[in-house]
């Protein structure tokens, strides 16, 4: 079994010339790639002024149970909300199943001055509220908190 080795990115390659006369092997996504460079410039500028959230961390449980219960949708909503609010210094990571399968999707949020808060039955709407209430304003969203203190 060979190790997965990185190869140069090619995005889209066409085996045949397609109907809209795209030349063979051309990169279709020039605009989108330019968007990435524009994003890079904006993000670079923001790097200089980051550290406003004091190293908050969010851990989304992504075991089979979490995924089946909607953890991927929660993760997408979380990233979208962080992007909308320009909260680039929040560390987002994942973990496996911690035995709270019936409470999935489970999310652990760690912010300065508070014990780690474990939230259960999190939905995309709830994670957006957690970002606003706990990460931005330091208030626990108590109706979804199922545990505090331990980092599940």
């Amino acid at each position, binding site marked *: *079994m060979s*190790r*997965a*080795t*990185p*190869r*140069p*990115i*090619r*995005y*889209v*390659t*066409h*085996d*045949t010339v*397609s109907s809209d006369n795209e030349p063979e092997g051309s990169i*279709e*996504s020039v605009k*989108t*790639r330019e*968007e*990435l*460079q524009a*994003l*890079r410039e*904006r*993000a*670079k500028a923001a*790097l200089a002024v980051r550290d406003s959230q004091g190293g908050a961390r969010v851990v*989304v449980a*992504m*075991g*089979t*149970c979490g*995924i*089946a219960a909607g953890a*991927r*949708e929660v*993760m*997408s909503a979380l*990233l*979208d909300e*962080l*992007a909308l609010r*320009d*909260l*680039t210094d*929040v560390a*987002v*990571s*994942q973990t*496996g*199943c*911690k*035995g709270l*399968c019936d409470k999935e999707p489970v999310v652990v949020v760690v912010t300065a001055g508070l014990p780690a808060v474990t939230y259960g039955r999190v939905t995309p709407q709830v994670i957006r509220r957690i970002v606003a209430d706990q990460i931005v304003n330091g208030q626990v969203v108590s109706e979804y908190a199922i545990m505090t203190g331990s980092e599940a």
Partner: protein
Amino acid sequence: MRELALHLLDLARNAIEAGATALTLTVTEDEPADRLEFVLQDDGRGMAPDTVARATDPFYSTRTTRRVGLGLPLLQATCERCGGRLDIHSQPGEGTVVRGNLTLSHVDRPPLGDMGAVLQALACESDHTSFRYCHRTNGATFELDTVELQRELGEVPLTDPRVLCWLAQFVNDHIRDVGSKA
């Protein structure tokens, strides 16, 4: 699971939990042959033959937090229900390859689903586990490599939420552009 993409996320999470530093995920839609094939290769710690043999047993799990392991058995059931199969090849210390296929036109086949959101979630972990994604249809191929993306981004981390939001859309746009019907 409602989408194949969620199963693939589950497989990739297994690989990450197995200590993989590099994943390669390939999805191939072969319309003339009416097959949808996926392959996930990792360089994680791998499994001994007896573990591989029990990996699709729902009442077998190596974890201690619960006594069932449903990810692989559910995916195997989905593949077999749709006229396909699931194979696992693994060597301790060398990694694991999970290969599955389904009948593309099978009425019970789950849709591929939101692959962009899956790769976005995996990219959150790209500082310790890089991945390559390859989506082939008859006629076109879309390839993405997190190492290459990070190089393009320079000092801006791929894990920046604005970059990850771009990534999800980018992936779904391109999977559509290569003519995916899955």
